[in-house]
C-alpha cells in the first residue's frame, strides 16, 4: 500500500549539483521544496576528514563513494541486433552514492562549453556545407540556447563554486595566460588559477614551442580561501592528490556539500528525504501535467510525494529511466526517428598517450583532481575541418593528479614486466617519471543510439534496468585518431623517452571500459518537440510542470567535462520557474 506525504510546491528528485542548485534558487524565492535522494547523508566532517580520506584502496579501488552496480546499473549492447547484457561491475557509470551525488567525488575540471558546441548543426552547415553535418550517421541538432544566453548563468555557477582559473577572453578581449579560444566572459574567475606543477611545465614549454596555446584548466579545487555569494566559506586546496573518487577533507573541492548545503539545509522551506528511491513521476488524469512522484524508502515501503512542480535532477541515466518508466513522452524509435525519450545518447571520445621520462621528478603524488594544462587548438571548431573526415575535436591536456600507487602499477613503458623483480625495478624507476596526455573529445549522437527499458534485467525493486544501445560515430573515431597523433607529437616534444598512444575509439564502445564518466543525452533540449524531450528551459514538452535537468538535456557532448554546463542550465531553469512559471503555470515561451 502506498502512503501519501503532504504536498510540496516543488519536489526535486536527486540532490547532486543539479538538484541543490535548483533547490537553493527555489527556496530562496520562497517555494517549499522537498528533495528526495536515493543515497544517505554524506558530508566532509562525518565521512571524509583528512584522517580518513587519503586511502586509495577504499575510495580509489573499492570506490566506496560510488553507488554500487548492484543498486544501479544499465544493460548495454552496441547495436539493436544484439542482446544487451548488464554491466555487473563498475564501469563508465560512477554514480554518486549519497546526497551531493557525483559532485562530492568528482575531479573538479570546471568548464564552459564553447559557443560552437551549442550550435553544432547550424554552424557546421554554415562553414562546411550540409554534407558534413548530415553524413547519414550523425544526428546533429542545436540546443535552442546559445553560449551568449548561458554566459550569465555560467558566471553565477562559477561564483557559487569558487572556480580557480585565468580568463582568456573577457568581453571579446583576449587575455594573456588564459584560453584564447574560449567564449567571451563578463569577468575573470572568482579565484586565481592553481600552481603549475612539473608535468604542466613540460607540457607548457613543448606546446608553446610548437605554436600552440597552453593554459591552466579551470578547477573546482580552489586556489585560495573564498566566500561565495551564499556566504559559504571554502579553504585552499593543499594539492593532496586524493581527489578524483575521493571527498575533500579541506573543504577545497567545490561540491553541493561545500558550497550549497550549509545554507540550503538550514532553510525552513527545504526538506530532504534520504535513502529513498524515486521510481516514477505520476501523471495527472488529463495527461497534460504531473502530480508528483512515487518513491520507495529504505524499508521497501512505497510513498507518494505530491507536488505542483516536479524537477528530475537524478543524473543523466536516472532521469531517462524515470521518464521511460513513467510513460511521460514517447520513446524514441531509431527506425522511424519518432519519439524523443531515449534519443541522442552520446559519450566522450577519448584518446591520448602515456609517456615516461628518464631522470625526471614529476612527483605525481602532488596534484589536484582537475589540475592540468590544456590546449584548445584542436577542440571544437577552432581549426579548419574542410580537409578532415570529422567534425569537432578534443581538449588536449596533461594531468597533475595521478599518483595513486595501486592504480599506477599498471602504467609502465611497453615491454616492462608486469610482475617479478623486473616489475619492481620498472615501477621503482618510472612511478615518478610517468605522465599522460588525455584527449577529452567531443561526442556526436547517432541515429541508432538509444536508451530504452531492458526486457530482461531488473533492479532490486523489480523496476526494469535502462538499456543502452550505442557505438561511436565514425566522425568521432576519426577525430580520436587525429587527436591521438597530436598528443604523441606533444609527448615527444616534451622529451618523453617512451610514448604509447591510446585510443578508446579504435574499437567498439563498451560501458565496462572506463574512458570517461560523461554520459550524455536521452532527454535532450531543443526548439522542436519532434526532436527534443524538453524545451530550452528544460521543461517537458509533454507535461508543463515537469522539468528534466542534467546532462540528459545535452543533444551532443563537447570536448570538455559537463558540470559547468549542467550547473548553468540548472540555475537558468530554476530562475525561469520562480520568475515566470509560478505566475503562469504553462509552457514557457
Amino acid at each position, binding site marked *: 500500500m502506498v502512503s501519501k506525504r503532504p504536498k510540496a510546491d516543488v519536489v526535486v528528485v536527486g540532490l547532486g549539483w543539479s538538484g541543490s542548485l535548483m533547490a537553493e534558487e527555489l527556496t530562496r524565492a520562497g517555494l517549499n521544496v522537498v528533495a528526495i535522494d536515493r543515497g544517505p547523508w554524506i558530508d566532509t566532517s562525518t565521512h571524509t576528514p583528512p584522517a580518513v580520506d587519503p586511502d586509495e584502496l577504499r575510495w580509489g579501488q573499492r570506490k566506496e563513494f560510488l553507488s554500487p552496480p548492484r543498486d544501479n546499473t544499465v544493460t548495454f549492447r552496441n547495436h539493436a541486433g544484439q542482446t544487451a547484457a548488464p*554491466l555487473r561491475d563498475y564501469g563508465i557509470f560512477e554514480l554518486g552514492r549519497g546526497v551531493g551525488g557525483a559532485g562530492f567525488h568528482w575531479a573538479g575540471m570546471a568548464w564552459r562549453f564553447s559557443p560552437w558546441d551549442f550550435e553544432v548543426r547550424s554552424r557546421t552547415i554554415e562553414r562546411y556545407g550540409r554534407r558534413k553535418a548530415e553524413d547519414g550517421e550523425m544526428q546533429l541538432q542545436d540546443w535552442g540556447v546559445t553560449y551568449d544566453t548561458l554566459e550569465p548563468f555560467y558566471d553565477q555557477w562559477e561564483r557559487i563554486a569558487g572556480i580557480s582559473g585565468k580568463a582568456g577572453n573577457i568581453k571579446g578581449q583576449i587575455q594573456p595566460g588564459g584560453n584564447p579560444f574560449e567564449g567571451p566572459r563578463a569577468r575573470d574567475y572568482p579565484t586565481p588559477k592553481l600552481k603549475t606543477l612539473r608535468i604542466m611545465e613540460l607540457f607548457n614549454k613543448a606546446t608553446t614551442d610548437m605554436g600552440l596555446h597552453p593554459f591552466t584548466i579551470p578547477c573546482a579545487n580552489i586556489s585560495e580561501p573564498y566566500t561565495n555569494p551564499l556566504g559559504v566559506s571554502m579553504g585552499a586546496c*593543499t594539492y593532496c592528490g586524493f581527489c578524483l573518487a575521493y571527498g575533500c577533507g579541506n573543504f577545497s573541492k567545490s561540491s553541493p556539500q561545500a558550497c550549497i548545503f550549509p545554507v540550503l539545509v538550514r532553510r525552513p522551506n527545504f526538506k530532504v528525504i534520504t535513502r529513498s528511491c524515486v521510481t516514477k513521476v505520476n501523471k495527472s488524469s488529463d495527461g497534460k501535467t504531473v502530480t508528483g512522484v512515487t518513491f520507495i524508502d529504505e524499508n521497501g515501503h512505497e510513498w507518494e510525494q505530491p507536488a505542483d512542480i516536479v524537477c528530475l535532477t537524478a543524473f543523466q541515466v536516472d532521469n531517462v529511466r524515470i521518464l521511460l518508466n513513467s510513460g511521460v513522452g514517447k520513446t524514441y524509435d531509431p527506425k522511424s526517428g519518432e519519439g524523443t525519450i531515449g534519443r541522442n545518447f552520446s559519450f566522450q571520445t577519448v584518446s591520448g598517450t602515456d609517456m615516461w621520462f628518464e631522470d625526471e621528478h614529476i612527483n605525481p603524488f602532488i596534484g589536484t583532481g582537475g589540475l592540468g594544462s590544456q590546449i584548445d587548438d584542436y577542440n571544437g571548431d577552432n581549426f579548419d575541418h574542410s580537409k578532415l573526415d570529422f567534425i569537432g575535436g578534443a581538449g588536449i591536456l596533461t594531468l597533475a593528479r595521478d599518483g595513486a600507487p595501486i592504480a599506477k602499477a599498471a602504467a609502465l613503458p611497453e615491454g616492462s614486466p*608486469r610482475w617479478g623483480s623486473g616489475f619492481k625495478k620498472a615501477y621503482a624507476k618510472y612511478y615518478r617519471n610517468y605522465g599522460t596526455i588525455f584527449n577529452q573529445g567531443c561526442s556526436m549522437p547517432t541515429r541508432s543510439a538509444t536508451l530504452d527499458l531492458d526486457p530482461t534485467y531488473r533492479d532490486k525493486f523489480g523496476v526494469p534496468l535502462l538499456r543502452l544501445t550505442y557505438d561511436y560515430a565514425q566522425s568521432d573515431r576519426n577525430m580520436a585518431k587525429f587527436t591521438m597523433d597530436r598528443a604523441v607529437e606533444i609527448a615527444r616534444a616534451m622529451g618523453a623517452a617512451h610514448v604509447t598512444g591510446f585510443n578508446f575509439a579504435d574499437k567498439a564502445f563498451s560501458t565496462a571500459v572506463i574512458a570517461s564518466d560523461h554520459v550524455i543525452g536521452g532527454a535532450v533540449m531543443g526548439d522542436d518537440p519532434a526532436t527534443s524531450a524538453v524545451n530550452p528551459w528544460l521543461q517537458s514538452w509533454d507535461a508543463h510542470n515537469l522539468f528534466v535537468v542534467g546532462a540528459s538535456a545535452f543533444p551532443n557532448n563537447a570536448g570538455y567535462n559537463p558540470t559547468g554546463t549542467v550547473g548553468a542550465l540548472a540555475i537558468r531553469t530554476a530562475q525561469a520557474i520562480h520568475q515566470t512559471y509560478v505566475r503562469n503555470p504553462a509552457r514557457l515561451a
Partner: protein
Amino acid sequence: MRRREILSLGVAVGAVPAARLLAAEMDAFPHDMALDPAFVPKPAPGGAPQVLTRDIDRRTITAVFDRFIPGDELGPSASAAGCVEFLDAQLAGPFGQGATLYRAGPKAVGEDALMQKPQFIATPRERYETGLRALEAYARRTHQGSFADLKPEQQDAILTGMEKGEIELAPEVNTRAFFELMLANAREGYFADPLYGGNKDMAGWKMIGFPGARYDYRLYADRTGEDLGLEPVSLVPKA
C-alpha cells in the same frame, strides 16, 4: 501557486509508522557532525585466517604472490609485506562477497565479449576457492607436485601460461581473469595503506617514492622537478 513557509512534516498518512520515514528525513543539519563511527576504517584483524583456511590454499597463494612480487634488493616479497593476510581480510569483507556487483542472472552467452571484459556472477571469494583448487590440481597433473613446491621457473611458466591465456586450469575457471584477479590483489596488498594488513613498514611506498597518506603539499608544490625525499606516512596512528 500557494506558498507555505513550513511544510508540516511527518504527518504520514498510511499504515507505516511515521517514525520510519522520519529517520531518513532531515530539515536542518544532522545534530551529530562527528565522524560516523561506522565510517572509521577498520584495520585488518590479523590472527587466524578467515577465508583462506585451508593450508594448501594459503601455500599456493603465498607462492603465487611471491612470484608476482619477490623479495629482492628493492624490498620484501609480497608475503613478507603481509599481502596474504591482506587478501584474507579482503575476501572476508564486502570485496570478497562481491557486495557491490550486480549478480542477477542470466549470464548471457557472449556477455564478456560484448563488455570486452569478463563479467562475473560468482563472488571474488568463490573465484578464489575454485581458482586456487584448480591451480593446485593443474600443478599436480602437469608437474606431479604442489604448486608451492615447484621450482620458481616452473611456477613462472604456469603463471605466464595463465596470463597469456595459453592454459586453462579447469572449465569452471576463467583462467586469464583469475590470473588478473590475483595480480591486482597482490598489488593492492603491496601498495595499499598498511591499515589493511599489507604494505608492512610501508615497504611498497618506499620502493617507488610515494609519500603515503599526506594531505598537504603546499610547502613542496613549488619545488618542481626536485627529488623531495619525503618519507611516507600511513593512516595507522603511530604507537
